């Protein structure tokens, strides 16, 4: 006789509707489940609904991704590829010790160049002022002439210029060596001892070694 009112067996069946739909009931469970469904309209409807839903969901089509989406992705990929080609360094590079060292040395070099250039110009100007004929020199007010008398005129010997050039060469040599693995120890040395005379001597030694090897 068919029942429509829920009874104690309905609870057991309703708990297993998911497993039944997934086909995960054992043979014995399946037999009991089907035996109950044959007698209970309520559970049968519930099971039918569960099956309908599962079939309807499974029948939902896989929706095609619009071409515009893929075109936008390709466009962004191209843009990023272009950026990578023109600037192959990622953001982390700018925080590396190598970059910081190179930047510091570049600044040092530019400062040295400017300083030595100004000093060189000052020496040339003084030499020109002393050797030029009186009529070629602009008339100087007496106050300025007195001031110039009070300030010591810088005197640079040939040795000073050589020393300046040597320091400049040191800086340039270090910068060119920054990207090379072989210069790693030198760079670390500078950070460690703060660029004192020991470091300079290390660099000088390295440079002399380099120049002697290139001479041979």
């Amino acid at each position, binding site marked *: 006789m068919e029942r429509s009112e829920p009874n104690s067996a309905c609870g057991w069946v309703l708990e297993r509707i998911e497993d039944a739909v997934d086909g995960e009931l054992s043979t014995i469970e399946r037999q009991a489940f089907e035996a109950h469904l044959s007698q209970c309209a309520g559970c049968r409807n519930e099971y039918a609904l569960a099956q309908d839903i599962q079939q*309807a*969901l499974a*029948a939902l089509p896989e*929706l095609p*991704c619009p071409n515009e989406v*893929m075109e936008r*992705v390709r466009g962004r990929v191209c843009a990023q590829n272009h950026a990578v080609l023109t600037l192959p360094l990622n953001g982390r590079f700018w925080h590396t010790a190598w970059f910081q060292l190179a930047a510091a040395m570049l600044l040092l070099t530019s400062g040295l160049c400017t300083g030595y250039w100004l000093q060189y110009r000052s020496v040339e100007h003084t030499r020109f002022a002393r050797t030029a004929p009186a009529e070629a020199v602009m008339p100087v007010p007496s106050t300025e002439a007195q001031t110039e008398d009070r300030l010591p005129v810088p005197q640079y010997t040939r040795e000073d210029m050589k020393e300046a050039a040597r320091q400049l060469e040191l800086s340039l040599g270090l910068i060119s060596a920054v990207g090379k693995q072989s210069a790693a120890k030198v760079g670390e040395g500078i950070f460690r001892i703060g660029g004192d005379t020991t470091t300079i001597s290390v660099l000088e030694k390295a440079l002399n070694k380099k120049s002697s090897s290139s001479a041979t």
Partner: protein
Amino acid sequence: MLDGSPAIAVMERHRNRVYSFCHYCLGSKEDAEDVAQEVLMRFWRNFETIDPGHYERWLMKVSANACKDVIRKRQTRRQVFDEGGHDLLGSRPDHQVTKWPGHQLAAREIRQSIEAALKTLNDTQRTIVVLREIQQKSYTEISEILDLPLTQVKVYLHRGRQAMRAVLARSREYGEI
């Protein structure tokens, strides 16, 4: 230039699946397009680091998380503007669910009813139902995609199916009146 790229080839192979999943989870074409685009871009950026045997799982996982983010933003927006949420997932009143009177309706209407019922689930239930019933994933795969214990996946799926049954049973009755 990109046609020979292996990443693009994989993206082409899986893009429908990604978009489809996003569409069913979010219930919105525009949102699904945006999320699919972001997921594919993320895939391209991380292509080298993804295990070649798990491209699809990776895509589904990222898609599920991205959909979750969109749903969360919608809910926040709803709370801020108190718009009533008529277009928001999980907030659609039952009476707005399309009637589903048995097998008499055309396939299109049944599909609409199912999609509407799907929208009444909460986002985890819906994601799991979509993965299981539409994308035909196993419990283990769903567990891996969503980083959820297997038992929890089963519980969510059970509740999701129950909720859908309840909604569709009501609309069936409503349709029969």
